[in-house]
């Protein structure tokens, strides 16, 4: 356990104390207790920059299940560090923002911050684990905490729907990824990413390579909301806005991108990796930006915009992989795409984070996010408006913001496809350009439909005014980062970008210099084209909007998802209803019948049935009498009609059994059985008056069915008892106990020594069970509503 491990676990530890702090420090907003942690962690991880920028890594291992090759190995390298800085940095800003966004008087802050910390720790675990199984555990934990956070306002139906949808889709992908992890383990015999990368040659020629690749991509695509799995992200917007800004734009949805980047050294040699990632990324990029324009809810626009931007980063990573795939083309042509991907990842976190916070402020101050109701807020909220301008213009790819730089690099990357010997390559730059036009349009919608135009106070629930300063701090910081990275992009290049790139593509030299001016080249012309066409289309939006009506609603992916889920629920419901009648006797009848069939089949199928009359103990006349008494009592008990006869007969059987224990040289059992039987009978008698005098009788047909099953069970058990005596497959372990009772445990009574010493665990749990039974009885009788209310 090192400091690094502690850093990963720290959020979980703090999460334990959050409910206590919330309960006892009601006057202080719980967020203030949480805020120091991400700040501290951010400072801690910043200290690693000097290490990673020298192309070194830090690895700390903590032994967990070493026998299975599962160790909690934490590794800080360029890529991991980039993500940890995003997680802790954005995390600190989001916590600060949430303090003002969520009221401490009306919201359940304890659960909110527990979930948020759970996510933070899990996400740190994902990006710092070198062991794939540990990575998978944290990966699912992020899905889980995302589920909890989307469903934070669980009394809203849409929240529950969105939470379930995100859970189903991301966990589906997670399971696929687990399959991929296991396939990799089969190929290499290790779960360590470092060791797997070292064996990438072995993997490439292995027949399981393609299935493993597809499994990993499923995991990455579902998590990063790639087409057609993107449908969960818009519904995830039901979460509180700080959560949307944090999980569903800056960090969690980038886990898929992280996975692709992390596994690139393993898979990228294969062309399938390249085309799948680049292709799906491009489709997602286009579809997301196209769909964003038709939305009327500000958060929905941002959700589809996030989908689109994730597609952009994904497609860039795909093209970057070409550097590994094509040997005859200068790799520098493609590595620029990877550089663009990593750079845009950072930029997206800054501008999208600030935009989400702006939308949160608008929602908070006006009570709506509907652009049809909003307008003219510019004069009322000047600071928010400024932040929105910076964020949206950066997203649209306008200078002098950081989005412009990465957009230019994005075009360079897309154009580099033309260098490949591929006929349809032209589709990529063209698709990218069209998507950029739509990106420009929705960026303008966000700013101008909200802040300019006609102010409609009658449609708003509240009277809007500028947000409190605390709420503005975080978006202001992010917006200033947008400008700083725009003017001085190279402060990132040596410290963060190059080490991260080195991790994604080991073996290539990276020297990143990002500049503003490259002359009048194709990229700049494309940007100018985007702006011109974008402005024209934005102004004529109302005229061509009907385009969106052309798509039949029936073909929508959401419809497909809903129907599929509905169908599965109905199917499993009717299947369950067909045998779950709600009657426990029917279930018992099923079980007993199944026992009969299964045991008879095994007994005769395996030829295990045998009757061996050798070595049987002798029978005395008194034993025959006892045996027949027990038989008579147990048959008679079946036909009793009153409570008193039943109780007496049960007692009879119990006492007879204890006599058998005497005969079979089991003094401990005989003693225990005798006393227990006495106490049991007195218990029955204590309850005597509370029990029905006459027992309910069953109809005859019912009796016949029961009798058949009962006889069957009796016969099968007899057969088993006979066979068990006749088959002695291996030596009993009892001899050990017999021999060692005195020497090892210094006791004389073997049964007692086994109970308290050799098999003390059994006894310990047994008395625990007894204690639970007592608690149950105590609860049934004492802890109930007084007055015996009729249900």
């Amino acid at each position, binding site marked *: 356990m090192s400091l690094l491990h502690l850093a990963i676990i720290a959020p979980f530890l703090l999460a334990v104390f959050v409910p206590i702090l919330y309960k006892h420090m009601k006057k202080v907003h719980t967020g203030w207790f949480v805020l120091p942690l991400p700040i501290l962690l951010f400072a801690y991880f910043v200290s690693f920059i000097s290490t990673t920028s020298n192309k070194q890594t830090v690895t700390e291992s903590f032994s967990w299940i070493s026998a299975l090759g599962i160790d909690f190995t934490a590794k800080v390298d360029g890529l991991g560090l980039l993500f940890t800085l995003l997680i802790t940095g954005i995390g600190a800003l989001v916590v600060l923002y949430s303090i003002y966004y969520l009221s401490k008087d009306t919201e359940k802050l304890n659960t909110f911050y527990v979930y948020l910390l759970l996510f933070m720790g899990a996400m740190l675990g994902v990006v710092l684990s070198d062991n794939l199984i540990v990575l998978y555990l944290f990966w699912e934990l992020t899905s889980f905490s995302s589920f909890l956070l989307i469903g934070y306002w669980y009394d809203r139906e849409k929240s529950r729907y969105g939470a379930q949808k995100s859970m189903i889709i991301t966990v589906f992908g997670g399971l696929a990824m687990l399959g991929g992890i296991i396939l990799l383990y089969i190929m290499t015999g290790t779960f360590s990413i470092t060791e797997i990368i070292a064996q990438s040659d072995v993997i490439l020629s292995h027949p399981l390579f393609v299935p493993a690749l597809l499994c990993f991509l499923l995991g990455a695509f579902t998590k990063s909301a790639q087409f057609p799995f993107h449908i969960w992200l818009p519904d995830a917007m039901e979460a509180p806005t700080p959560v949307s800004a944090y999980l569903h734009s800056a960090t969690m949805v980038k886990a898929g991108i992280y996975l692709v980047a992390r596994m690139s050294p393993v898979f990228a040699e294969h062309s399938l990796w390249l085309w799948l990632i680049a292709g799906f990324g491009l489709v997602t990029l286009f579809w997301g930006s196209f769909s964003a324009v038709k939305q009327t809810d500000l958060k929905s626009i941002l959700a589809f915009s996030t989908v689109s931007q994730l597609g952009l980063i994904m497609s860039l990573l795909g093209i970057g992989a070409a550097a590994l795939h094509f040997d005859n083309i200068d790799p520098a042509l493609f590595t620029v795409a990877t550089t663009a991907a990593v750079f845009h990842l950072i930029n997206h976190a800054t501008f999208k984070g600030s935009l989400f916070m702006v939308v949160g402020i608008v929602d908070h101050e006006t009570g709506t996010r509907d652009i049809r109701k909003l307008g003219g807020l510019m004069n009322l909220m000047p600071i928010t408006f400024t932040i929105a301008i910076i964020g949206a213009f950066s997203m649209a790819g306008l200078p002098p913001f950081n989005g412009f730089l990465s957009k230019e690099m994005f075009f360079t990357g897309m154009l580099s496809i033309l260098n490949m010997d591929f006929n349809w390559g032209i589709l990529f730059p063209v698709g990218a350009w069209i998507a950029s036009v739509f990106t420009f349009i929705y960026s303008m919608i966000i700013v101008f439909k909200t802040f300019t135009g006609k102010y409609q106070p009658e449609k708003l629930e509240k009277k809007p005014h500028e947000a409190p300063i605390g709420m503005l701090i975080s978006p202001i910081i992010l917006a200033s980062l947008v400008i700083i990275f725009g003017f001085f992009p190279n402060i990132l290049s040596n410290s963060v970008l190059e080490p991260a790139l080195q991790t994604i593509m080991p073996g290539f030299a990276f020297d990143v210099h990002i500049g503003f001016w490259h002359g009048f080249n194709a990229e700049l012309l494309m940007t100018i084209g985007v702006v011109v066409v974008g402005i024209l289309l934005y102004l004529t939006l109302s005229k061509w909007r009907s385009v969106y009506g052309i798509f039949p609603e029936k073909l929508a992916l959401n419809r497909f998802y809903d129907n599929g889920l509905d169908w599965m629920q109905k199917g499993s419901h009717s299947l369950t209803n067909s045998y779950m009648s709600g009657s426990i006797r029917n279930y018992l009848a099923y079980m007993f019948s199944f026992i009969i069939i299964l045991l008879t089949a095994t007994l005769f199928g395996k030829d295990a049935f045998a009757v061996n009359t050798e070595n049987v103990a002798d029978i005395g006349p008194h034993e025959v009498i006892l045996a027949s008494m027990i038989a008579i009592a147990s048959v008679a008990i079946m036909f009793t009609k009153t409570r008193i006869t039943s109780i007496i007969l049960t007692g009879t059987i119990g006492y007879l059994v204890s006599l058998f224990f005497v005969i079979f040289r089991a003094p401990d059992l005989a003693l225990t059985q005798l006393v227990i039987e006495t*106490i049991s009978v007195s218990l029955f008698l204590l309850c005597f008056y509370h029990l029905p005098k006459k027992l309910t009788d069953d109809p005859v047909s019912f009796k016949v069915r029961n009798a058949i099953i009962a006889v069957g069970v009796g016969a099968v058990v007899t057969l088993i008892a006979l066979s068990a005596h006749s088959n002695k497959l291996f030596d009993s372990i009892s001899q050990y106990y017999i021999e060692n009772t005195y020497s090892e*445990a210094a006791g004389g*009574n073997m049964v*007692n020594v086994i109970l*308290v*010493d050799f098999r003390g665990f059994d006894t310990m749990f047994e008395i625990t069970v007894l*204690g639970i*039974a*007592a*608690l149950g009885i105590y609860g049934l009788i004492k802890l109930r509503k007084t007055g015996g209310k009729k249900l």
Partner: protein
Amino acid sequence: MKTNDLILQTATKLILFLIVLFSIYIFFAGHYTPGGGFVGGLLTSGAILLLLLAFDLKMVQNILPFNYLYMVALGLLFAIGTGAGALLFNTPFLTHAFGDIHLPVLGELHLHTATLFDLGVYLVVVGVTMTIIQTIGGDE
């Protein structure tokens, strides 16, 4: 309805102590001869049950003012504590230790930590049985 329990009550006063003594004997003897925590505990509960039958619940509660649920907890603590004690000596959970002590006059005394574990079992059994009987009997 008034019942005449004189014979039962008189006999109980005598037999009760015999049963309790026997149960304590059987508890300690359990390591060598038949007996142990289970039987000892059950016998003790049997004795208290007899007391309950002869007298009434209130009176028994006055004589033995225990909260039997606490007794269950105490017993579990004994059992787990004995097991966890082994960890202090760097041995696996539930490892027992034993030894002989020579006492003047009384002679050899054999000590075994398993007895402590068994005492936990004893307490749990008495606690559980009495909780059950008391709650059922005390209903109404």
